[in-house]
């Protein structure tokens, strides 16, 4: 069972995602409305299958698939794809899936290479339902923030093409500037809300458990710093403190920051796996 769920299925999922990426690359070079519609529907079905795997993995190992770095990257990729699949249904042009697909396929591959296998025993700091919920929420928040970075990158690409009068394929196939801006703001706001909730949950949990673990406190500090920066970005977007392309650039920067902090956190949690 473990072999199927934690070894074979991730490889199948990776191959499906890689196939979808190849399909979209083909559509980009050989435009086809029917092809786009089919690939979009296929992407939607695939996202349900991906989530199905996450649920099965959770049931089998008694914890969300966040027990090692491979599982975590894999799970994050799935969350990003689910969010992107939902959001792409809100716009007419669909070519925005290309960039997230590249990110997701890379995450899946990295996850498989680092190992998605079920650990023999669950580490103490990763066991328990509250930890599971906190980690899943945090991952969902990170997925939304990374998604916002993807939209920002596409927004900046289209902005550059519009300003420099480059009327090529990207100009034609990306969603409109306003749509991308709307999606970026929605992702950012949703990411902020989820991260805030996750953080509050962790604080309440620490308070209740009267925890003074130095590991937890050292994990909390960068997260609170990130939350503060994130809140500033959300406010800047809400009140239009910067020009729209600059807001997109800051979103992209924020995504990179989130990614770096994520890697640092992963190193702290799973550091021994690298050793």
């Amino acid at each position, binding site marked *: 069972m473990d072999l199927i769920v934690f070894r074979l299925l991730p490889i199948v999922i990776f191959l499906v995602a890689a196939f979808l990426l190849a399909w979209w690359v083909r559509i980009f070079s*050989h*435009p*086809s*409305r*029917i*092809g786009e519609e089919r690939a979009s529907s296929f992407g939607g079905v695939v996202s349900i299958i991906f989530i199905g795997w996450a649920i099965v993995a959770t049931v089998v190992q008694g914890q969300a698939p966040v027990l090692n770095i491979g599982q975590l990257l894999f799970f994050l990729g799935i969350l990003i794809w689910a969010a992107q699949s939902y959001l792409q249904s809100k*716009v*007419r042009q669909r070519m925005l899936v290309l960039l997230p697909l590249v990110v997701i396929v890379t995450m899946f591959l990295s996850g498989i290479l680092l190992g998605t296998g079920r650990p023999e025993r669950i580490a103490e700091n990763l066991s328990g339902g509250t930890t599971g919920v906190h980690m899943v929420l945090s991952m969902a928040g990170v997925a939304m923030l990374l998604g916002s970075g993807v939209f920002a990158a596409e927004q900046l690409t*289209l902005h550059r093409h*519009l*300003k420099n*009068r480059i*009327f*090529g394929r990207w*100009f*034609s196939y990306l*969603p*409109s*500037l*306003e*749509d991308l*801006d709307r999606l970026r703001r929605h992702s950012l706001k949703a990411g902020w809300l989820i991260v805030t909730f996750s953080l509050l949950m962790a604080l309440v949990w620490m308070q209740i458990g009267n925890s003074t673990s130095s590991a937890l406190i050292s994990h909390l500090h960068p997260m609170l710093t990130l939350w503060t920066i994130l809140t500033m970005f959300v406010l800047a977007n809400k009140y*239009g403190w910067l*020009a*729209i*392309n*600059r807001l997109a650039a800051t979103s992209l920067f924020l995504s990179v920051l989130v990614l770096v902090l994520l890697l640092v956190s992963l190193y702290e949690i799973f550091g021994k796996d690298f050793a």
Partner: protein
Amino acid sequence: MRLEMIGLNHTTSSIDIRDKAALGPDRIEETVKTLLRVHDISGVVILSTCNRTEIYISPKFHTPQADLREMFEALTGISSIEANSAYIYQDEEAARHLFRVASGLDSQLLGEVQVLSQVKDAYHKALELNSSNNILNKLFTRALECGKFVRSNTGISQGAVSVASAAVQLATRVYGSLEGHNVLLVGAGETARLTAKYLVKSGVTSWRVSNRTVANGQVVADLIGGEVVNFPPTAEDISWADLVITATSSSVAVVTMETVSSALRKNKELKLFLDLAMPRDVELAVRNLPNTYVYAVDDFKEMVASSLKAREQEAVRAEKLVMKQVKDYVDWYNSNRITPAIQQLQEVFETIRVRELEKNIRHFNEIDHEQIDLLSRSLMKKVTNHIIANLRHANTNGDDINLAKALSKVLVSEDEENLNEVLEQLDYELSH
């Protein structure tokens, strides 16, 4: 195959000749009737648009090219010299030509969409006049399917190909749907009106019009359902607008950096300026302001050129898809060329069935008559289907026709005239 076409288009004839040769709706009926009455043909469809006049014929036997030209000359009223510029295609080439036409590959503006509905109208007219036969029915339905398929599977019809449509495309690249966006129209000339018309079609309902001559501005405002405001537009008007279209004949810029800066202080949302005037109506420096995108006539021309280039690249893929569709049509035709023999077979078997049934039905109880009738039909159907399937299966190197000929000779002894007609048709198919 029994298919031929003659016609002229923008590549072979001048607009004067095309005008003269055009067969408008009032002339089509008469022309079709003449063709069916005078010439030995079993079906005709006429496609007449501003760029082409083409007659698709399904003849009983192929017509010599000179006769076809003479016929075209007589029907359209053009001179014999002018008729020499007409092109003639037969069989597979004629099918290929129509499929290319329906796909927009033969259009003056590559990939244009309108021609597909013109082909559809031509076919419907033929159906209405009862002038189409099964060969033309299949040809036109396949051509229409091909036109749709090619457009859905390639980018042959994508991108803006006129300045006005380029302006609208730019607006949609910035705003997506234009519904619910405010548009300020500066100028009320022909260009401004044309672009406004495109935008109204794209769903814009909220307009302000700014024009030097208020009366002219009011005419346009009434036309698009907007209100007239000051000229030149104020910062308040620009702040209100998401999209500003300028098309005045002013020799100096009417939208200045100062006005736009002031407008942006009030409203920081994205602003798009489409400057269709020559010289420019929007100061060049506006381009450098945040949240603004400014485009001028040269940009639209560049967009159009870029779209046309992309369409040319897509045309290569489209041609391949057309070739496949033509092949499918030819395959269909070849599998149906023994149809006269099949019809004859079915008629003969049905005659035998009815005759035998009438002769023997009295031996059965009346209550069983219906069952006996059903049984005999089913029996005959099974026998004929078996023979037809084997005939179709022999569709290589004319084997099917030789078999069909043999079958016709074996089956028919009393109806000599009918037999000869079927054999003549089969011989013709074999030689073409």
